């Protein structure tokens, strides 16, 4: 299986998104790099809307991911409730 990765600007919104990722993807590895946070995981990685809402303490729209996203790898599956990246190998 190949690794997927996603990176965010290091700011006050991303912090909660990353916390939600860590909670829902226990094998994910988080790297803090200058001004950015990069998260890697084997095979796939999922961001659940509900988990982010819980972490951030308010309603959060999956599409607002666009505001803080820096880069990602893998194929995308985007729904109202989650955002997922994965490789098919």
């Amino acid at each position, binding site marked *: 299986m190949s690794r997927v990765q996603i990176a965010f600007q290091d700011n006050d919104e991303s912090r909660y998104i990353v916390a939600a990722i860590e909670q829902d993807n226990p094998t994910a590895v988080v790297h803090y790099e200058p001004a950015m946070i990069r998260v890697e995981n084997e095979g796939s990685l999922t961001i659940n809307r509900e988990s982010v809402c819980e972490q951030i303490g308010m309603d959060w729209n999956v599409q607002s991911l666009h505001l803080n996203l820096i880069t990602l790898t893998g*194929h995308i599956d985007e729904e109202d409730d989650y955002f997922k990246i994965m490789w098919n190998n």
Partner: protein
Amino acid sequence: MSPTKLNLKDKYKLLTRDLDWEFSYEDRQEAFPYEEFEGIKITDWDKWEDPFRLTMDAYWKYQAEKEKKLYAIYDAFSQNNGHTNVTDARYVNAIKLFLTGVSPGEHAAHLGFAFTGRQMGGIGARVAAQMQSIDELRHIQTQIHAMSHYNKFFDGFDEFNHMHDRVWYLSVPKSFFEDARTAGPFEFMVAIGFSFEYVLTNLLFVPFMSGAAYNGDMATVTFGFSAQSDEARHMTLGLEIIKFLLEQHEDNVPIVQKWLDKWLWRGYRLLTLVAMMMDYMLPQKFMSWQEAWELYFEDAGGALFKDLERYGIKMPDYTETIKQEKEHLSHQAWWTFYQYTHAAAFHTWTPSSDEMDWLSEKYPNTFDKYYRPRWELAAEMEAKGERFYTTGLPQLCQTCQIPMMFTEVDDPSQVAYRESVYNDERFHFCSDPCKSIFDNEPEKYVHAWLPVHQILQGNCGGGGLDKVIEYYHLDNGAANLEFEGSPDAERWKQWKGVA
């Protein structure tokens, strides 16, 4: 969420796919005249999958929010004299290179995506390409705005647009984008959308921006990451187009493979400038070119090609060459610019002894053996007041337009030269892949506007080097030459209160 709201899928369907219409009285082929001439076969545009279900209304909303954040930071940056907070004035040369070499590429991408956003027959792909076209226009605009603050205090920024069409090393990115823009819509998508945006853009933006952050440049890191937030969308458009072309018809596979082989190499050669920026131009270094290459190409690109294998696509043959070059690239590039900096719109310098130690540590197989002695000699000459410049003109590669400076894979002491004869004329190349790109489309590359040939033919101001520098609008004695003793360096000392 209120129950009356459409879900993402339905909203996307209504606000994107439903914007298309049937051609009842016009000929569809006439409406999309470029769709077939590249040999690509599309059987069903409805099979197009949109990764991000971004509709135009949401697009404007998020883009506006990004811009507001960005310009608030620009204001704060200039109100607080942010330029004095960078690690060292040498750093600013990295962003001079960015504005002159990269930003005009954003504009070229804007034009290219406007073309594909008109010419592709499928509505999903068309809307995504149109959004990208607008993004790329936003990128060049925000970059010019960010740099306009530095332009008030440093030399080398003001004539970036004039220079882009003339200066020798800027013909490298210029010709890259022109090559892509003069191809058909699908080759453009594979060239820029996939090979550049998906596979290589991380190597351009992420190191540049992390480097900026590390060196105290808040304006650049902000526009960089703001642009990069669009890049994630661009990358997935690139990946989607590749999958779509490969799934549509098996006859597309060899065409796409040939484009990939061409464009990954063209893009990789272009990134030579980034390699040098990372290893030599950032006073505060955070990652070597080799490390970035391993993380973003070998690792991430490897996973990608494993995924594309099922379509019969393979990693280009030259990846072994790249693997070997990664330990040499930045050193050879900086050495080239060091020698020719009298004709460049930024300063160069010899690495300090601390920097050389860092390079030895990052490049244990090559730096001490091949490059340290060269830099020590250069520093020695400089100390004696004999700063080294080369006065001759280099030979350029007909394909990538980079001076011949890359060495043979099995012999780092030997510069590589390749050649082909076409219509009784001899053409020169830096490498096997550049030669085979030419051999596949010689009628295109014989037209290359090679800066050195143009100088020798008298088309760049005529006369000697002084005339060329004038033709470039290069502020002689200020924007060019060695960093030490430059007006930039002197002003910096004054601001910092150093005698």
